[in-house]
């Protein structure tokens, strides 16, 4: 589980044109000092728009909708992984969610020696 969440910060979607040509990737998470956090709506939207303009994509709205839907599915899958972990009595790594989104107390120091 720790290994999964170590890599989660680099999770991104691949934006594809309607002819399924691979264009570019858009990151879905931001790193913070307390863990990974899903990216902002505005940034997700802007990152996709940049790709659409860069490659002068036809049917841009359809491609954008598909990319956002893909992003939502990826993140929903992360939620399911977390749920599965909780249901099976596994603990999640501390960087799985920043404390604000868990709404918990936390200890800022990683190691107290």
């Amino acid at each position, binding site marked *: 589980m*720790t290994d999964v969440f170590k890599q989660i910060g680099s999770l991104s979607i691949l934006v594809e044109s309607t002819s399924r040509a691979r264009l570019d990737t858009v990151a*879905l998470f931001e790193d*913070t*000092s*307390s863990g990974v*956090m*899903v*990216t*902002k*709506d*505005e940034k*997700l939207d802007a990152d996709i728009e940049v790709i659409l303009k860069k490659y002068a994509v036809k049917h841009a709205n359809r491609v954008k909708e598909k990319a*956002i839907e893909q*992003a*939502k*599915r990826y*993140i*929903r*899958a*992360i*939620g*399911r*992984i*977390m*749920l599965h972990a*909780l*249901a099976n009595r596994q*603990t*999640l*790594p*501390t960087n*799985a*969610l*920043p*404390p*604000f*989104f*868990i*709404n*918990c*107390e*936390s*200890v*800022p*120091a*990683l*190691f*107290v*020696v």
Partner: protein
Amino acid sequence: MFSDRKVMFRGYDEDYEHDDVLNHIGMLGFSGDILNYAIDSGDWTRETFFAKFIPETVINTRTILLGSLQDGLTVGGKEACPSDEIEKGCGFASALNIPFDAIQHRFFAKPDICVEDLINVIVPQYMVGGE
């Protein structure tokens, strides 16, 4: 039971201590003085800062993906808590008013490791395995 373990989001509500909120948004990269800056700007009071500024800035700016994460955690089955109601939290933690720290201690790894923890993990086991 399984259904009781659906969600860890507790919700952004009045039980969330203001000091904790400031501490936690500091970990997200917000300046530690953001409260004072906001009040000095004249646009916010202490009350509106916590009631509106924080949810608008930290939660409602991420509704697409945060909502999807919540959908995944609830298996999309909690009608009372669709993606647009992220602030309210959902699941047993919210319903049963479980303390913040209890959630983290139960579901998340310990954020700090002390010497005693380390020693407990590396206690040698003699005459186990090998010859």
